[in-house]
C-alpha cells in the first residue's frame, strides 16, 4: 500500500517535471522570438516596476550601515562623564557626514552636468537604486523610467565617461546594461590613430577592444572613444584607456585591454542621454 502510494507520488512528480521543463522551453523560445513589446518583455518591465522599491529599500538600508561602519568604528563610551560628550560628538559626526555626503553629491552632479554640456548632450540625471541580482550580468537600476522620458536603447553616462545603455524601462525605473557586461558591445575607435573596433565586456567585468586593424593598433594609455557608428552611442564619448596590447604572431587582430574611467562599482549618480543638442551625429 505504502509502496503503491510512493509510486503514484513518483509518477506525479515526473509528470510535473515534464510539464515545467516543457513550459520553461516554451517560455524561452517565445522570449527569444517575440518583439520588445511582447508579453514576456512586458512581464519583465512589470517585475522591474515591482522590484524597484525593494531595490531602493535595500540601497537605503545598506548605505547607512556602510557609513556607520566607516565613520564610527572604534567609538565606545565607557565612562559616565564622557558619555554625553561622546553622544554629542556622534551627533555632530552624523551631521558632518550628512553635509559631506551632500557636498560630494553636489560635486558629482556638477561634474556630470559639465560633462554633458561639454559634449552638447541633453541629459537626465538619475540615481542608482539597485544593482545586478545575478552574477552572470552587469547591470544597474536607476530611479528614472518611461514617465520621465527614458526609453530603451538610450545611452547612460557617469562622471568619467560611458557607463551603459538602457535595456528595460518601466514607469519610474529603468535597467541599464553596463558596458562591462558580456553581452555589451560599443562601436569605438582609438582617438590617436582613428582605428575602429568594438568594445566588449566580459564575464570578468573587463573591457577589450576587438577587431582593430593590427597596422593601427593602439598603444598603452591611448584613449578609446565612441565612434557613433550604429547610431546607439553619440560620437566622442570616452569609453576608457588602453592598459595592455597583446599582438600574437599570425593573429589578425591584437588583443587590446582597456579600463573604464568610471568607478563602476562605486558610481551613485548617472546621466541618461535623452537627446543631443548639436553633436556631429
Amino acid at each position, binding site marked *: 500500500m505504502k509502496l503503491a502510494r510512493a509510486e503514484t*507520488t*513518483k509518477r*506525479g*512528480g*515526473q509528470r*510535473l*517535471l515534464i510539464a*515545467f*521543463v516543457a*513550459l*520553461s*522551453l516554451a*517560455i*524561452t*523560445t517565445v*522570449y*527569444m522570438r517575440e518583439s520588445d513589446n511582447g508579453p*514576456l518583455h512586458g*512581464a*519583465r518591465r512589470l*517585475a522591474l516596476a515591482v*522590484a524597484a522599491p*525593494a*531595490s531602493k*529599500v*535595500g*540601497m537605503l*538600508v*545598506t548605505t547607512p550601515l556602510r557609513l556607520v561602519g566607516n565613520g564610527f568604528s572604534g567609538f565606545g563610551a565607557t565612562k559616565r562623564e564622557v558619555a554625553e560628550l561622546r553622544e554629542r560628538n556622534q551627533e555632530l559626526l552624523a551631521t558632518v557626514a550628512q553635509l559631506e555626503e551632500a557636498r560630494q553629491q553636489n560635486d558629482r552632479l556638477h561634474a556630470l552636468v559639465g560633462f554633458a554640456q561639454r559634449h552638447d548632450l541633453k541629459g537626465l540625471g538619475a540615481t542608482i537604486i*539597485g*544593482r*545586478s*541580482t*545575478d*552574477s*552572470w*550580468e552587469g*547591470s544597474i537600476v536607476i530611479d528614472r523610467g518611461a514617465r520621465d522620458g527614458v526609453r530603451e536603447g538610450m545611452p547612460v553616462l557617469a562622471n568619467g565617461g560611458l557607463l551603459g545603455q538602457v*535595456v*528595460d524601462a518601466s514607469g519610474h525605473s529603468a*535597467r541599464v*546594461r553596463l558596458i562591462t557586461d*558580456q*553581452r555589451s558591445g560599443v562601436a569605438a575607435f582609438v582617438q590617436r590613430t582613428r582605428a575602429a573596433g568594438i568594445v566588449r565586456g*566580459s*564575464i*570578468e*567585468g573587463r573591457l577589450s577592444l576587438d577587431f582593430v586593424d593590427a597596422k593601427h593598433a593602439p598603444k598603452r594609455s591611448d584613449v578609446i572613444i565612441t565612434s557613433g557608428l550604429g547610431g546607439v552611442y553619440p560620437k566622442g564619448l570616452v569609453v576608457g584607456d588602453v592598459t595592455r596590447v597583446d599582438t600574437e604572431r599570425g593573429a589578425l587582430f591584437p588583443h587590446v585591454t582597456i579600463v573604464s574611467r568610471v568607478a563602476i562599482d562605486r558610481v551613485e549618480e548617472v546621466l541618461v542621454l535623452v537627446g543631443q543638442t548639436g553633436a556631429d551625429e
Partner: protein
Amino acid sequence: MSRRWGLIAALAVAGLVQAALAPHLAILGVVPNLLYLAVVTVALVEGPAAGCAAGFAAGMMHDLLASGPIGPSALVLTLIGYFAGTLHENLFAEGWLAPLTVVFIAGLVYETGYGFVLAVLGSGAGFFASLWRLMLPGAVYNTALAFLVYPWLARLLQPERSMTTLRRLL
C-alpha cells in the same frame, strides 16, 4: 493548505531579499542566489514534486529580475529542484553535512547548466573563465550561506522533524 502557503511565502521572501539585499552582499562580483537556496531546501524537505514546482517559480522570478533571456533559470532550477527532491527521503534527518554537500554540488550543476543554456542562446561566456570567475565561487558562497539559511528554513517548512542547527553544532 497552510504548508503550501508556507512554501509560497518562503519563495516570495527569497525573491524579495534577492532583489533588495543580495546585490549588496556580492563578493568580488559573485552575487549570492537565495532563490536557489530556497529551492534546494524546499526540494530536500518536501520532495521532487514540490522541488520542481518551486524550482520553476523561483527560476521565473530570477529570470524576471535579471536582464538576460527569460526561461533558462526556470528550466535549470526545475531540474535541480526535482533531482534534489529525489534525495528527500534519504537526506532530511538529523544531519547537516549531506544537505550542504547537495547544496554545493547542485550549485555547481546549476551554474554550469545555466551557463550552458545561455551559451546555447548566444549569451554565454568562455567555460573556464566562467568556472573560475562564477561557478566555483558561486557554489562556495551559496554553500556558506546555506550553512546559515538551510537549517532554519528547513525547520520552518517542516517543524515536526528535527534538524541540527548551527547553534547545536557549536
